[in-house]
């Protein structure tokens, strides 16, 4: 769910934005040594497949929750959404609030019991239990291929950022950072990935938090910042209201309306990402018991609610305080002689503005940590899905546990090399980056329909699940291609001739989800129902979910979920 536009490659800067001093470099080097040290330390604890792929299923709710959110909080996420806040204003906050919190709470309260009780190792593993091998194979192969491609593309985009911001060599950035990730994930598996993600989460916050604190101080608080934005930007009031401008496509900078935000983003796209993307769900599955597995995404939601403070607010502060104007990436590329800055550079610009020696190193380390946490998430999820959902059922089902651990380690190395290859591919064929990002989005929304129907509707059959997922995915691809080759068609998909590209993703997700659900329902009703015995532990009504009444109220996940949801409502009203 990154908004980062991966078109920086041609933007080779004459000079870098940031120049690091000896203390800054020491901080970055210590970080690299530390994450490798963690991998070496944890290798002794990863002996079995359960240790390597599922971190022994011994993570506390806090560790699983912080890892869950950190795997998503990549550097491109930080840079991209800070840039989106500069470009679209506070509307970008919807990708953190309505576009994440309800889905995370839904995962914790409604879906996690089924994932956890059936003891599956992965989301495709759940599909195998519920819908059979065909649906699992479709989801696993799509996920494995897309994960590696996305990992490589993110790696390339990050290397570009390092070149633009720090002046670092592109090849050095790609190889050093990806081999470091490969080393610590290969040594300690998911356990190492999770431990490093918790560390990275702390560094991201501590490295980025000074910017909004000092920015707000300089701007004269929230009101001072709003006043400056209204002075600096035409129609500035629309940049500081989250909902009041969403009545129509033409009244906000994003060109979207509330239907797209609420139903496309909130009800489908974010639900699909946060509840079925194995990259994030894997972290929660590693929790030590069901209550911890339910609490982990709820803890993640609590922190996610405040991430806009270090991502969206710096973008808004950039609008208020930066002396120069930032431009779209393609405009910057078209005018290299003018040495302009793009939206995506707002966060580094704000870092440079406030952070002196030492603090700058910490801020850059936060960006690197963000990149590594995202890549480690991709690599560890790929290793698990490949080994458990592709290699074991389709290629070699009779090997012992040690063989699968070795396969996981090899797979981690191969995944890193494949990611590097994808990064170089993207370097030569930049258009592939947009296509792969779109490809990934094709599977998210239909997969959510398939999984959620499987969990909540006993009548859904194996054929229904398979054909629903396939139909939803193909319809998403078809809608994407239609708009790609004939842009005016967007007005039919987004229901308005004033809709902008951002609305395309939201409405396409909504339609392909509905198509997938409709096909699943129709095919299921036309095929014989699955016997109740086969649905035990998989579906609502056939699963004994342990009661939480024995816990005091304050220890029950539902209590915290309600509290966080209430906080979400209050925040949205405050920034209406």
């Amino acid at each position: 769910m990154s908004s980062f536009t991966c078109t920086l490659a041609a933007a080779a800067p004459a000079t870098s934005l940031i120049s690091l001093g000896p203390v800054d470099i020491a901080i970055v080097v210590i970080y690299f040594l530390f994450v490798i040290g963690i991998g070496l330390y944890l290798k002794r604890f990863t002996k079995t497949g359960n240790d390597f792929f599922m971190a022994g299923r011994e993570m506390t709710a806090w560790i699983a929750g912080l890892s869950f959110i950190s795997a998503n909080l990549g550097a491109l996420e930080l840079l991209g959404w800070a840039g989106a806040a500069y470009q679209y204003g506070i509307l970008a906050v919807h990708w953190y609030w309505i576009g994440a919190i309800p889905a995370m709470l839904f995962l914790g309260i409604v879906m996690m019991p089924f994932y956890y009780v059936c003891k599956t190792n992965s989301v495709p593993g759940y599909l195998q239990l519920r819908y059979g091998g065909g649906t699992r194979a479709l989801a696993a192969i799509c996920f494995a291929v897309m994960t590696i491609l996305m990992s490589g593309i993110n790696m390339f985009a990050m290397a570009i950022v390092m070149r633009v911001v720090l002046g670092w060599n592109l090849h050095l950035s790609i190889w050093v950072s990806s081999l470091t990730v490969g080393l610590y994930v290969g040594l300690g598996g998911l356990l190492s990935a999770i431990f490093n993600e918790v560390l990275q989460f702390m560094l991201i916050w501590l490295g980025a938090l000074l910017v909004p604190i000092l920015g707000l101080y300089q701007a004269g608080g929230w009101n001072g910042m709003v006043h400056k934005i209204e002075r600096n930007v035409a129609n500035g009031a629309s940049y500081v209201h989250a909902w009041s401008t969403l009545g129509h496509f033409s009244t906000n900078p994003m060109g979207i309306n509330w239907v797209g935000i609420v139903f496309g983003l909130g009800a489908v796209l974010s639900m699909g990402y946060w509840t079925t993307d194995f990259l994030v769900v894997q972290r929660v599955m590693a929790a030590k018991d069901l209550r911890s597995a339910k609490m982990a995404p709820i803890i993640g939601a609590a922190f996610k609610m405040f991430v806009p403070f270090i991502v969206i607010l710096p973008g808004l502060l950039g609008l208020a305080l930066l002396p120069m104007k930032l431009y779209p990436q393609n405009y910057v590329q078209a005018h290299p002689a003018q040495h302009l800055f793009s939206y995506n550079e707002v966060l580094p610009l704000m870092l440079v503005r406030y952070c002196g020696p030492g603090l700058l190193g910490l801020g850059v380390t936060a960006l690197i940590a963000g990149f590594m946490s995202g890549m480690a998430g991709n690599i560890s999820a790929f290793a698990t899905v490949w080994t458990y959902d592709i290699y074991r059922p389709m290629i070699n089902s009779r090997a012992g546990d040690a063989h699968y651990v070795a396969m996981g380690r090899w797979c981690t190395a191969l995944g890193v090399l494949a990611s590097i290859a994808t990064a170089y591919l993207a370097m030569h064929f930049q258009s592939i980056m947009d296509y792969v990002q779109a490809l990934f989005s094709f599977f998210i929304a239909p997969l959510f329909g398939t999984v959620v129907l499987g969990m909540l509707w006993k009548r859904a059959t194996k054929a229904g699940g398979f054909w629903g997922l396939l139909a939803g995915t193909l319809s998403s691809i078809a809608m994407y291609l239609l708009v790609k080759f004939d842009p005016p068609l967007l007005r039919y998909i987004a229901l308005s001739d004033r809709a902008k590209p951002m609305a395309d993703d939201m409405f396409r997700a909504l339609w392909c989800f509905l198509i997938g659900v409709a096909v699943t329902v129709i095919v299921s009703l036309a095929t014989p129902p699955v016997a109740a015995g086969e649905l035990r532990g998989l579906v609502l009504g056939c699963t004994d979910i342990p009661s939480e009444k024995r816990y005091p109220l304050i220890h029950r996940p539902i209590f915290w979920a309600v509290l966080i949801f209430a906080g979400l409502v209050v925040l949205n009203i405050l920034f209406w």
Partner: protein
Amino acid sequence: MKNNANSIWFLIGILLFIYGVLIAAAGIYGWFVPPAHPVELWRLHAGIWWGALLFAMGLFYIIRFRIK
């Protein structure tokens, strides 16, 4: 692993402690030897108090979650 569940917080403590020392030291040096091109709000000496915060957090994590 169960006996080492706290080790992640301990390790984080070590890193924050080291970073706190480095950043605070850089901030104190900058106080006495002002840079030629100071950052915005340089007068607040953010490096010193942010470094002190990291130092204190690191120390807390090291003591609270020390590996026995």
